[in-house]
């Protein structure tokens, strides 16, 4: 959206244009989205009461958010009762400082990480590297984009835009040797390379899909097993949890763990779900001696009690990305470095401020498919429309647009002005009209028609024809 949203908006326009102009990327996004949609459809069709399961997720998450202060206290008390440490961080800086301090105290040389979008959000890797430690992402997709120095393309499939040859080149550069074969061979290389890291790592950093308030348990979901390795092998485990990611008790996990994998990967269950309750106990043979749970606000508490509070019900399934027609065209990078798709278009402005991200709510066709597929029944499309209204109410919109809409409103109230205006516009547009479609033109018209088809105006307006008794059929005889 030209003129809206500051420097990030310019990057949005540039990255969208790059993605739209990249034929290979366009095919890749479409193939992945089609595959994910089909698997999600099959997995959902298996449960005849699927909609009721989503209602349950929505109700439990809404209840938790409504009583978040009580559940946060209960959760923190229980983590500590089981021997874990809890740190409440107001923002990314406090979280980074605390975790870097833990790493420094351990004199950690090697830190392994399981995929965590929150870690991306607070930019943890740079802070940990600054302590002198080697930081290694172990989720295969995160590992690939770490090597490529990129940000995630999708909240679940961070490297889903990478081709086989690109991945091969990255792995070859790392290993210093030629790697033959396809995905299986490349994955085998990553397993071998990362296994060595796991066995000697001093610290493991993971996300937390759900925190269970009644037990102080950290629930981590993964398919590859890297999250299990990260949370089991190193002597210290640091779990990052968004302030909002709690459920009241173990039983409440049922709907979450039933809906999440179906909406996310189109499977009945991910390969691994771990419910971790405290650090290693005296009689345990393995597991980390230290567990730190870092509860991070970073803008979330501001959303509580406000008009957009339901966004905090999100369980990060990614279904809104997988079904979004805008994501299908522009991919994940245009939205910014962390959250993409409809969830990103709502969450990023709320977390980081609307002024710099006023363009994001406009990255939607408002087709409402995100509302339909959302696991937690978040009214994403309504929020996008409401955020647009906030943009205008806050004076963050484009002045030219504003003047244009004001002019439009005035003209529609005055039939004479409207009709003469239309006639002039019709004449003017004819300069750039070829085969019934307007292309090019000055200023906004040129930019508008760069990527859109604008049909030329009919020779005679509806009003004119109406006055003549509608003798000609619209579209014919003009």
């Amino acid at each position, binding site marked *: 959206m030209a003129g809206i949203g500051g420097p990030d908006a310019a990057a949005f326009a540039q990255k969208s244009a790059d993605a739209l102009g990249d034929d290979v990327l366009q095919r890749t996004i479409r193939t992945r989205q089609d595959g994910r949609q089909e698997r999600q459809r099959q997995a959902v069709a298996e449960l005849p009461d699927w909609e009721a399961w989503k209602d349950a997720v929505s109700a439990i998450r809404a209840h938790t958010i409504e009583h978040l202060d009580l*559940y946060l206290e209960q959760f923190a008390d229980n983590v500590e009762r089981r021997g874990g440490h809890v740190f409440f961080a107001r923002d990314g800086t406090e979280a980074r400082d605390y975790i870097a301090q833990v790493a420094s105290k351990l004199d950690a040389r090697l830190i392994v990480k399981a995929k965590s979008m929150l870690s991306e959000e607070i930019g943890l890797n740079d802070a940990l590297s600054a302590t002198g430690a080697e930081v290694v992402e172990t989720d295969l997709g995160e590992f690939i984009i770490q090597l490529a120095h990129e940000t995630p393309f999708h909240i679940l499939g961070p490297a889903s835009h990478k081709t086989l040859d690109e991945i091969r080149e990255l792995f070859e550069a790392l290993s210093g040797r030629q790697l033959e074969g396809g995905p299986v061979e490349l994955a085998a290389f990553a397993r071998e390379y990362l296994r060595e890291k796991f066995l000697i790592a001093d610290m493991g950093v993971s996300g937390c899909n759900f925190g269970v308030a009644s*037990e102080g348990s950290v629930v981590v979901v993964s398919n590859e097993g890297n999250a299990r390795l990260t949370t089991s092998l190193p002597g210290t485990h640091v779990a990052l949890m968004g302030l909002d990611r709690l459920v009241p008790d173990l039983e409440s996990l049922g709907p979450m763990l039933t809906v999440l994998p179906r909406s996310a990967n189109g499977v*009945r269950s991910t390969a691994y779900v771990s419910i971790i309750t405290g650090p290693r106990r005296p009689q345990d043979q393995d597991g980390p001696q230290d567990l730190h749970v870092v509860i991070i606000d970073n803008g979330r508490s501001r959303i509580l009690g406000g008009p957009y509070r339901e966004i905090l019900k999100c369980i990060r399934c990614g279904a809104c990305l997988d079904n979004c027609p805008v994501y299908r065209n522009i991919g994940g990078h245009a939205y910014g470095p962390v959250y993409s798709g409809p969830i990103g278009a709502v969450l990023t402005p709320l977390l980081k401020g609307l002024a710099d991200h006023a363009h994001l709510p406009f990255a939607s066709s408002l087709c409402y498919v995100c509302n339909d597929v959302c696991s937690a029944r978040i009214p994403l499309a309504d929020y996008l429309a409401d955020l647009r209204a906030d943009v205008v109410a806050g004076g963050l919109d484009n002045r030219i647009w504003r003047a244009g809409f004001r002019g439009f409103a005035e003209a529609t109230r005055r039939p004479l002005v409207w009709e003469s205006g239309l006639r002039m516009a019709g004449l003017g547009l004819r300069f750039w009209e070829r085969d019934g479609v307007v292309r090019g033109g000055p200023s906004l018209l040129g930019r508008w028609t760069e990527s859109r088809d604008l049909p030329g105006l009919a020779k005679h307006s509806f009003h004119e024809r109406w006055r003549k008794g509608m003798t000609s059929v619209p579209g014919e005889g003009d």
Partner: protein
Amino acid sequence: MERERLLQSVRARLGRTQDGGAPAPPRFRPMAPPFADSEDDCVRLFLERQAELGVAVSAVAVRDEAQTAVQQLLGDRRQRITCSPELCWPAIVPMWTESVPDSDFGLCEADWAIAETGSIVLSMGGLRRRDVSLLPPAVGFFVARSRIVARLGDVLRSLAASPDSLPTCVTLVTGPSASADIVGVRTLGVHGPGEVHVWLVENE
């Protein structure tokens, strides 16, 4: 300090003025699945799920037979087995290794199995190590027929019923380790075991 400050801002946003417990969370009673009432149906569905997940299943009548089955599978392959002490039967001893990272096969006892998803539930802590089911390239689970439940909710309710005995780590394992992070192609054994065996113990 940070804790109180943050909780205070959460309370303020929620407009809560006084302390008090949260009301009971909403409970969901899903439509009963058609297989839930019959143990035979649950077992059948669990076995179907294993086949779909690419897990090799064999049934053994009693625990002693399992020893022979393991020996048959692994003896010929000259494999080094890792397992917790209660499974280190005489037949296993010659193949047993102390070093989990160097082992070829992890042997575990399932606490429960879930018919609907085909998941194996492992409680870990004490002598049951987490890495036994994680580091070796292949893993095998003993599943007693009587421990197969219909749904995840059944397991969660059992765990919730005795919170004081909740182990350090409960893991649900559903098929082999898998990833589609390289060009969307499903590859197995990316970090965890790529090969999974299940021995269903009929009478226990």
